[in-house]
């Protein structure tokens, strides 16, 4: 039996998120005090680096190394940005932290600012997260009133300010360079990288961008030490991960466990098993750009490296599907997402996603050909090789996965005009185009 271990979600439901006193009673601002009274910026970077913490925004970049890059880059003004644009379908872990424990992010941003030499922080919260914005803004005001934010924090020489910036509806603004463009008041179109934000970020200054969940680990690491943290999880991926689970399971919601849980364990323990009448068919893990996982990969331990075995952990979203999900229909929905959310800056992504979705719609309507499957494979490859940013580069994963794991089911749509799950237009259902 796998048990929860709560670090990121430790205070959720336990403290009143609107009361700074509650936060302080639960180790709040202890890490900041420890940092400002006895640690140099280099000490802080060193602890984060040795902890093995990796970025929870999806890619798993080592956090300490990023902090070191920004700290070593000279700049008159540096910035810390907390990425709270959380828009990956299936993902709401960052919202839970911002709504339930906003001060932990305030505190971590101040510590990050001290470590890298930044005096200004921004948090970019997606426009649809009104409650998160409200709770976070309230936390900032309280922190300022209590001497944790502003000038001479805790009577030290360190000054730090945080601004809240609201998104306005665009998945792509979660990509860090698009996010920076958006704060600067432009369309959220990703820049060409390199240069990276660590050297040329907000207003071309060195900028640290970290995800909410990444930052939510920082205060506990400072308080308990790098060794404590590194001992949790798997060798490549230290610490815990917050997963969200939903779909055809008995219990939907979130849980936090040490890295390395398998899908089977997640479904059995935290999903409380498959819903009655449902048989596991596949899981869609890691959000839209993640992976479609067939039954034979149910026992792969999930961490930042398990994508090599075909299971992408990504944001930690676990969508559990049963026999009533059709893989063509699901891929159609996923490609529609990429088509809608593509910023349109580069051709492979703008056109490729549209083409792929049109082909999938055709297959779902019973007018697909075997040649279509070759074209889908080709589009997937082009998307991967020629797109400017991660959105386009991963948009082909559902295409690849349905053709690798569920080819006979896709071919049945073409050859015998048969939708096993009975959801596609050819089986008499209204077309959803």
């Amino acid at each position, binding site marked *: 039996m796998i048990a929860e271990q709560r670090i990121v979600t430790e205070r959720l439901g336990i403290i009143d998120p609107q009361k700074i006193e509650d936060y302080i009673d639960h180790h709040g601002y202890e890490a900041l005090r420890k940092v400002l009274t006895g640690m140099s910026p280099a000490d802080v970077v060193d602890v984060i680096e040795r902890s093995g913490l990796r970025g929870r925004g999806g890619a798993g970049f080592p956090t300490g190394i990023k902090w070191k890059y920004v700290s070593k880059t000279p700049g008159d003004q540096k910035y810390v940005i907390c990425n709270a644009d*959380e*828009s*990956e*379908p*299936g*993902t*709401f872990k960052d*919202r839970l932290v911002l709504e339930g424990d906003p001060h932990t992010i305030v505190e971590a941003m101040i510590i990050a600012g001290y470590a890298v030499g930044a005096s200004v922080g921004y948090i970019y919260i*997606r*426009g*649809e*997260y*009104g409650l998160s914005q409200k709770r976070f803004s309230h936390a900032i005001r309280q922190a300022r009133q209590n001497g944790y934010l502003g000038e001479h924090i805790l009577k030290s020489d360190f000054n730090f300010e945080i601004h809240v*910036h*609201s*998104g*306005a*509806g*665009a*998945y792509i603004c979660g990509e860090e360079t698009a996010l920076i463009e*958006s*704060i*600067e*008041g*432009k*369309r*959220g179109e990703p820049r060409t990288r390199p240069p990276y934000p660590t050297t040329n970020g907000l207003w071309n200054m060195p900028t640290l961008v970290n995800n909410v969940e990444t930052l939510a680990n920082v205060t506990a690491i400072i308080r308990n030490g790098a060794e404590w943290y590194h001992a949790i999880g798997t060798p490549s991926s230290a610490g815990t991960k917050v997963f*969200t*689970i*939903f*779909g*055809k399971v008995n219990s*939907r*919601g*979130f849980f936090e466990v040490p890295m390395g849980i398998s899908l089977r364990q997640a479904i059995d323990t935290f999903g409380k098993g498959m819903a009655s009448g449902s048989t596991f068919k596949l899981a*869609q893990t890691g959000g*839209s750009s993640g992976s479609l996982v067939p039954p034979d990969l149910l026992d792969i331990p999930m961490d930042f490296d398990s994508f090599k075995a075909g299971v992408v952990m990504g944001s930690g*979203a676990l*969508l559990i*599907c049963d026999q009533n*999900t059709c893989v063509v229909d*699901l891929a159609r*929905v*996923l490609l*529609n*997402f990429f088509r*809608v*959310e593509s*910023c349109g800056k580069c051709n492979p992504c703008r056109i490729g996603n549209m083409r792929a979705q049109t082909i999938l719609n055709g297959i779902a309507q019973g007018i697909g050909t075997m040649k279509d499957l070759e074209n889908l494979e080709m589009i997937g490859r082009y998307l991967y090789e020629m797109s400017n940013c991660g959105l386009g580069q991963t948009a082909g994963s559902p295409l690849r996965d349905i053709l690798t794991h569920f080819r006979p089911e896709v071919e049945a749509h073409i050859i015998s005009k048969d939708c096993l799950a009975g*959801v596609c237009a050819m089986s008499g259902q*209204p077309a*959803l185009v």
Partner: protein
Amino acid sequence: MTVGTIASDKARQVAQEVCQQHGATRDELIPILSDINRQLGYLPAEALDEISTQLKIPKSQVLSAASFYSMLSTQPRGRHVIKFCESAPCHVQGGREVWLALQDQLQLKSGETSPDDRWTLETTSCLGQCADGPVILVDEDIYLNVTPDQLSGILAKYK
């Protein structure tokens, strides 16, 4: 277009006020656009024009930002905007049936506004409430675990 447009002097006046509240600088552009959109329901051309003057940036750049974000609209919309989450988690949890029923009840397709200006129907990507899908958003109110038979009750609340 059947939808009434905002009087142009009102649009300019609101745009001017919002720019002054935020401070007329480039990095305030998106917050400014969001605020005006909230107050007027959309971004009329006169408002964009006024922002361009206040912030001293070309009109094309204001329009380019205004047309990019899904929470902003450069077209007038109905009195109530109803957004249906079309992402995979909601879809798998019964969203498909809700979407069909919603289009049927409103007699609208995605992106359309009803002849009486009461509704604009839109689809949206994930709203971060996936464990409680299907999800629809009516103006600022979110409805979770929506089933087709709840729709008429929900719609009746909005005149």
